[in-house]
C-alpha cells in the first residue's frame, strides 16, 4: 500500500482518537490512516484544511472526523433545552451524493453509538421535513449549494447557523469551476460572517493548482483594521500572500489497469456511437461482476443501452441512469446498484462524482474522455479500495478518438492533471447573492462588499462594479432611471438595503440557483382511449424542448432505453407511445458536453508527429496515419496543418488545430467572415474536437497560394478583435448566454411547472429583451456579464487566442488534388452537424426553398 501523506503546515501533535473511535477501528482490525489523523490535528488547531486524495482513501470519513469527535463529546440535547443550531454542514454538488453520504456515514455512527443526528436537505426533501429541520436542526446537515443559498436567505439564517463549527465541501475540484462554485463561495463568505471561527474542510481529487482551492476555503482580503496594504507588495505577489487553508495530500493508490478496446472490427472514420464495439463491450460485461459504462451525452447513453440489450442473449440485468430520467426510476437503479443486483449500468455524468455504490469491478468508457483528470475520476469508480488497481477499458468511437484515448491513457499513467483554471466570479451570480442577502436581513453595501471580496472568486472585485450590481438588483441598473418607484430593494433611513416587498423574497426563492436547464418538457405515455388521444399516462422523464422541436409526431426516438413514438405535444407535456420493434430515428448528436482539454490536445498532436509512438496504436489506425504521411503530411507538434482540395463543384479547406469543438466553432465563424470579405464565397463550415472544415465556391488553395489572403493573414490574431465583436453581437450563442445570465441574475423568472399554461404570448422572451437592451444600452452590466461568460465558456476565445499565437509563422499548407485520409472524418460530419451556428440569414434561405415546395404542393 502506497499511502503516503504529506502535510504542509506547522505540524500539530498527532491527534488521538476518542475512545469509541479507537474501539471501532480496532474491532474491524483497521487503523486510522495517517491523513485522517493529520486532518483531525489541523482541525483541532483551528485551521481549515484541503484534503486531496484518490477515491477509496477514506476521504469522507476523514472529512467528518473533526465533526464526529466533537459531537461525540457533546451532550445530547434534552427536550426543553435551548435551541441548538446545525453543527456541521456538508455540501456536495449532487443530490445523489448527499443521499449516498448519509447512508455511508450513518453506518459507522450507529456502530459507534454516537448521539449524532444526520439528515439531508435537497430539492427532493418534503416541505414538512424542511420546516421541522428549521425548528430542530440535525447535528450534521447534508445539502447542496442551492439549498445553502436558500437557508442563508431566510430571516432566521443567523440563528440556524449560530452554532456552526464545520463546513465540509465534497468534490471541491468539480464545484469550484462552475457558477455553482461562485454561489457557494459567496455562501461560505456569508457563513464566515455569522461564525467568524468557522472552519472549512475541502475534499478534492487531484487538481493542477491545489493552492487555488486552498485560497478558496478561507477568507480572502483579510480586513486589517483600516491598515492599507503595504504599497511595496506587487500585484503578482498578492496570491502568494493570500490566506490559504492547510493541505493534506494522499498520494497514489494502486495504478489503474487501463486498456483500449482492441476490436477486430473496423474502427469507424467518424461518428460517436461506437456501435462497432458492442459485441466486445458485452463480452467484457459478461466477464465481470459489475460494469459501469460511462458516455458523454444522454443520447449516447440511450443508444448504448439499446444496443446492449439487442445483444443481451443472457438477459443480464443492465440498467440506464441519466439526469433526464424520472427521479423514481433513477432511485430504483441506484437501489439496485447498492444491492449489487445489476451487472451493468450505462451512465452519463450523473454518476461521475464520488458516488460509492456496489461492487463495481470494471469501468468502460465509451467515447473519448476529453480530459485526463475526468478519465481518472471516472475510473476511480471501480473497485473502491485504494490499494487494488482499478480496471478500465476505453472504447474509442472513431479514429481520432483512438489517438485521444491513447493520449489520455498515457496521461493517466503519468498522473497528469488538466483541470480547468478557475475564473473570476460571475456577476449574474453576485446579483442573485445580493438579493438573497437582502432577503435575509437589511445589509450595508460597504459591509457586504467586504464580505463578497472575502470569497476567493470575487477577491479582486472592484467597488464600482459591486455598486452597479446593487443598482441592478434594486432598479435594473438602467441608464434611463425609470424604475425607482418599482425598486426591489430600497435603502432604509439608516442607509441599509432591504427588500421592498415580501413578494420579492418569494421571487428570489423560486429562482435561486445557477443551473439553468434548457427548457424541458415532461415526457409521458399517452393513455390509450377514445376521444381525445392526448391523455396523460405514466411519466418517463424530462426531455429538452429543443430536441422535440426537430422531430414531428410519428417520429421515433430513444428515451429511457425504449423506442418511443411522439404522439403530440400539449403545453409542457410531450405524449409518446411505445414503438417496440421499430428502429429509432437516431437522435441528433448535440456534440460532446466537454471540449477536448488543452493538455490532451497537445498530447494528440505530439503523438501524430512521432511515428515511433504509432506502434501503440491499433494497426488500422497506424496505417491511416502512414497513408496520410504519404499523401499529404502530418503536422508537427506546434504547427498547424491546412489542407485544401476540390471536391464536386466546391473547394474545401481543412485545418487541424486540435483545440476542441468550441474553439474551432468560433474560429470557423470568424474565418468564414474573412473569406467572405476576400471574395472566396465560403458556403459553410463544420467543427469537431480535432479539426475544422470550410467549403467555398472559390478555389481556396489557389487563393492562399496567391496570397489573397495568405494563410498567415487569414489566421492572424487580430480576428479576435473587431470580427469577433461584430459576429458576437448577432450570435445565437450570445443570446443563449444572455438568457442564462438574465435568469441567474433574476431579471427574468425561471419557468416553473404549471406556470407556463398562460401561454407563450404572456411571457417576454429573453431574445426580445436582449435585442432591446443591446440596441439601447450596450454597456449594461448584464451584457458585460454575458460577454464574459461567452468568451470563457461557449466560445473558448482564450484557447483560440493561444492557438493563434502558437501557430504564428508555423502554418503548413498542402494544396491537394483530392481529399486526404486525415480529412475524411470531418468530411463525414458535413451534413450531420449544424452547418452554421448563426441561424438568421441561413434559416431564411432555407425557408425560401420551402416556399417553392409549399407553393408547389398548394
Amino acid at each position, binding site marked *: 500500500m502506497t499511502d503516503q501523506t504529506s502535510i504542509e503546515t506547522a505540524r500539530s501533535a498527532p491527534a488521538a482518537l476518542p475512545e469509541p473511535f479507537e474501539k471501532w477501528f480496532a474491532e474491524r482490525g483497521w487503523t486510522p490512516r495517517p491523513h485522517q489523523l493529520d486532518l483531525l490535528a489541523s482541525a483541532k488547531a483551528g485551521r481549515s484544511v484541503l484534503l486531496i486524495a484518490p477515491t477509496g482513501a477514506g476521504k469522507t470519513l476523514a472529512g467528518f472526523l473533526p465533526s464526529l469527535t466533537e459531537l461525540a463529546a457533546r451532550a445530547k440535547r434534552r427536550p426543553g433545552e435551548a435551541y441548538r443550531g446545525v453543527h456541521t454542514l456538508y455540501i456536495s454538488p449532487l443530490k445523489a451524493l448527499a443521499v449516498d453520504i448519509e447512508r455511508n456515514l450513518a453506518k459507522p455512527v450507529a456502530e459507534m453509538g454516537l448521539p449524532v443526528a444526520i439528515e439531508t436537505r435537497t430539492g427532493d426533501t418534503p416541505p414538512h421535513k424542511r420546516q421541522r429541520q428549521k425548528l430542530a436542526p440535525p447535528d450534521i446537515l447534508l445539502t447542496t449549494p442551492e439549498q445553502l443559498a436558500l437557508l442563508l436567505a431566510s430571516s432566521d439564517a443567523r440563528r440556524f447557523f449560530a452554532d456552526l463549527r464545520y463546513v465540509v465541501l465534497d468534490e471541491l475540484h468539480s464545484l469550484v469551476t462552475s457558477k455553482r462554485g461562485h454561489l457557494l463561495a459567496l455562501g461560505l463568505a456569508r457563513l464566515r460572517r455569522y461564525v467568524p471561527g468557522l472552519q472549512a474542510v475541502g475534499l478534492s481529487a487531484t487538481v493542477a493548482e491545489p493552492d487555488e482551492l486552498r485560497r478558496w476555503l478561507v477568507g480572502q482580503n483579510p480586513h486589517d483594521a483600516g491598515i492599507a496594504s503595504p504599497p511595496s507588495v506587487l500585484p503578482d505577489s498578492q496570491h502568494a500572500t493570500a490566506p490559504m487553508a492547510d493541505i493534506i495530500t494522499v498520494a497514489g493508490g494502486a495504478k489503474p489497469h487501463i486498456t483500449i478496446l482492441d476490436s477486430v472490427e473496423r474502427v469507424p472514420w467518424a461518428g460517436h456511437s461506437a456501435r462497432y464495439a458492442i459485441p466486445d463491450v458485452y463480452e467484457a460485461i459478461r466477464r465481470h461482476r459489475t460494469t459501469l459504462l460511462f458516455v458523454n451525452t444522454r443520447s449516447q447513453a440511450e443508444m448504448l443501452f439499446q444496443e446492449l440489450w439487442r445483444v443481451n442473449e443472457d438477459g443480464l440485468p443492465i440498467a440506464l441512469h441519466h439526469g433526464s430520467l424520472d427521479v423514481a426510476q433513477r432511485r430504483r437503479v441506484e437501489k439496485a446498484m447498492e444491492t449489487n443486483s445489476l451487472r451493468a449500468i450505462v451512465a452519463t455524468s450523473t454518476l461521475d462524482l464520488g458516488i460509492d455504490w456496489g461492487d463495481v469491478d470494471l469501468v468502460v468508457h465509451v467515447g473519448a474522455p476529453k480530459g485526463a483528470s475526468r478519465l481518472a475520476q471516472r475510473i476511480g469508480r471501480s473497485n473502491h479500495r485504494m490499494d487494488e488497481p482499478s480496471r478500465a477499458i476505453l472504447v474509442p468511437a472513431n479514429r481520432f478518438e483512438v489517438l485521444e484515448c491513447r493520449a489520455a491513457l498515457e496521461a493517466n499513467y503519468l498522473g497528469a492533471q488538466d483541470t480547468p483554471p478557475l475564473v473570476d466570479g460571475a456577476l449574474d451570480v453576485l446579483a442573485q447573492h445580493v438579493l438573497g442577502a437582502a432577503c435575509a436581513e437589511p445589509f450595508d453595501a460597504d459591509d457586504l462588499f467586504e464580505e463578497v471580496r472575502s470569497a476567493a472568486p470575487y477577491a479582486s472585485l472592484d467597488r464600482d462594479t459591486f455598486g452597479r450590481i446593487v443598482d441592478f438588483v434594486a432598479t435594473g441598473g438602467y441608464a434611463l432611471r425609470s424604475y425607482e418607484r418599482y425598486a426591489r430593494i430600497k435603502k432604509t433611513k439608516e442607509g441599509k438595503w432591504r427588500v421592498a416587498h415580501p413578494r420579492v423574497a418569494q421571487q428570489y426563492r423560486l429562482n435561486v440557483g445557477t443551473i439553468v436547464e434548457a427548457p424541458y418538457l415532461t415526457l409521458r405515455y399517452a393513455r390509450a382511449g377514445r376521444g381525445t388521444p392526448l391523455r396523460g399516462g405514466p411519466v418517463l422523464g424530462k426531455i429538452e424542448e429543443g430536441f422535440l422541436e426537430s422531430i414531428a409526431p410519428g417520429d421515433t426516438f430513444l428515451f429511457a432505453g425504449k423506442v418511443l413514438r411522439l404522439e403530440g405535444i400539449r403545453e409542457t407535456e410531450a405524449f409518446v407511445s411505445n414503438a417496440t420493434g421499430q428502429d429509432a430515428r437516431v437522435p441528433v448528436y448535440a456534440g460532446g458536453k466537454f471540449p477536448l482539454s488543452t493538455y490532451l490536445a497537445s498530447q494528440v498532436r505530439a503523438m501524430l508527429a512521432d511515428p515511433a509512438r504509432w506502434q501503440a496504436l491499433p494497426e488500422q489506425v497506424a496505417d491511416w496515419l502512414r497513408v496520410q504521411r504519404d499523401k499529404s503530411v502530418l503536422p508537427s507538434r506546434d504547427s498547424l496543418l491546412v489542407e485544401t482540395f476540390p471536391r464536386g463543384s466546391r473547394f474545401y479547406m481543412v485545418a487541424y488545430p486540435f483545440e476542441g469543438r468550441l474553439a474551432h466553432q468560433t474560429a470557423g465563424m470568424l474565418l468564414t467572415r474573412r473569406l467572405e470579405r476576400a471574395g472566396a464565397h465560403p458556403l459553410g463550415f463544420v467543427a469537431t474536437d480535432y479539426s475544422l472544415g470550410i467549403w467555398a465556391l472559390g478555389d481556396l488553395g489557389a487563393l492562399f497560394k496567391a496570397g489573397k489572403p495568405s494563410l498567415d493573414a487569414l489566421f492572424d490574431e487580430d480576428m479576435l478583435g473587431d470580427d469577433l465583436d461584430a459576429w458576437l453581437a448577432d450570435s445565437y450563442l450570445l443570446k443563449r448566454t444572455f438568457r442564462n445570465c438574465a435568469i441567474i441574475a433574476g431579471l427574468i423568472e425561471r419557468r416553473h411547472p404549471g406556470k407556463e399554461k398562460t401561454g407563450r404570448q404572456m411571457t417576454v422572451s429573453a431574445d426580445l429583451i436582449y435585442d432591446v437592451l443591446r440596441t439601447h444600452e450596450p454597456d449594461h452590466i448584464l451584457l458585460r456579464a454575458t460577454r464574459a461568460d461567452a468568451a470563457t465558456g461557449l466560445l473558448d476565445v482564450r484557447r483560440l487566442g493561444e492557438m493563434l499565437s502558437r501557430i504564428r509563422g508555423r502554418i503548413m499548407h498542402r494544396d491537394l488534388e483530392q481529399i486526404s485520409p486525415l480529412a475524411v472524418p470531418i468530411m463525414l460530419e458535413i451534413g450531420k452537424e449544424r452547418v452554421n451556428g448563426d441561424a438568421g*440569414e441561413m434559416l431564411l434561405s432555407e425557408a425560401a426553398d420551402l416556399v417553392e415546395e*409549399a407553393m408547389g404542393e398548394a
Partner: protein
Amino acid sequence: MTALAVIRDAGSRAGFTLAGERVVCDERGVLFFPDASLLAVSDLHLEKGSSFARRGALLPPYDTAATLVRLQAVIADYEPRRVVSLGDSFHDGGGAERLPEVFRLQVEAMAAGRDWFWVAGNHDPEAPAGLPGESVRALQVGALSFRHEPSAGALDGEVAGHLHPCARIVRRGRSVRRRCFASDGHRIVMPAFGSYTGSLNVLDRAYAALFRWERFFAYMLGRDRVFAIARPMLRPG
C-alpha cells in the same frame, strides 16, 4: 425607399386581396391597404416593460422607444392617410398614463395630418388618456372590418390581432419559428408589433375555428420579405 416603390415591389411583398380589397403584407408586421390608404398595426403593447416592472421584473425600459421607432419607419414609408392600431396598444390600462412625455410627443407627431384609430383591446379596453386619435370598439372601412379579437366562425373581410400568431417549420432537422400573418384569403390575423410581445403558434386550438384551413397560409416574417407557407408544412410548438 418611397411608398410607391414599396407597392411596386410587390414581388417580394406578399400582395393579395382580402374580401376583394388589395392588401400588402409587410415583413415588418404591418398591413397596408393602398385603396383606402390605410395602415394597420396590431398589439403594440406599449409600456409592457414598465407594466412588468410594477410587478418586480425590471425589464429594460426601452421597449416603447423601440416599438415607436419601428412604427415611425413604416408610417414614413407608406405615408398612409389612416392608421388603425388594432387593440392592445398598451399593455395595461394605466399604460397611456405612464407613457413618458417624449413618447407622447412622438405619437402626436405620427398622428398629425392623418386619421388615427385606437381599437379597444382586452389589455386596454378604455381609450388611451391624453393621446390624439379616435377610440373605437371596431372599425368598418368598405368591405373590411377591423377589430381586436377575431370573431368566432370564418368571416369575410375581418382584420384582427390579439392572438400574436407565429408559425414554425422544420426542415432538415432544424426548426424556424417566426411571427406571421395568418390568413385564408377571407380574414387575416395580424402578428403582434410590440418589442416585447411573444407569440402563439397558428396551429394552436385558439385558431381552429377561424379559418378555412384548406386555403390557409402563414405569411412568415423574414428579414427582407414575407414567406407564404402552406398549412401542410407547418408544425405545432
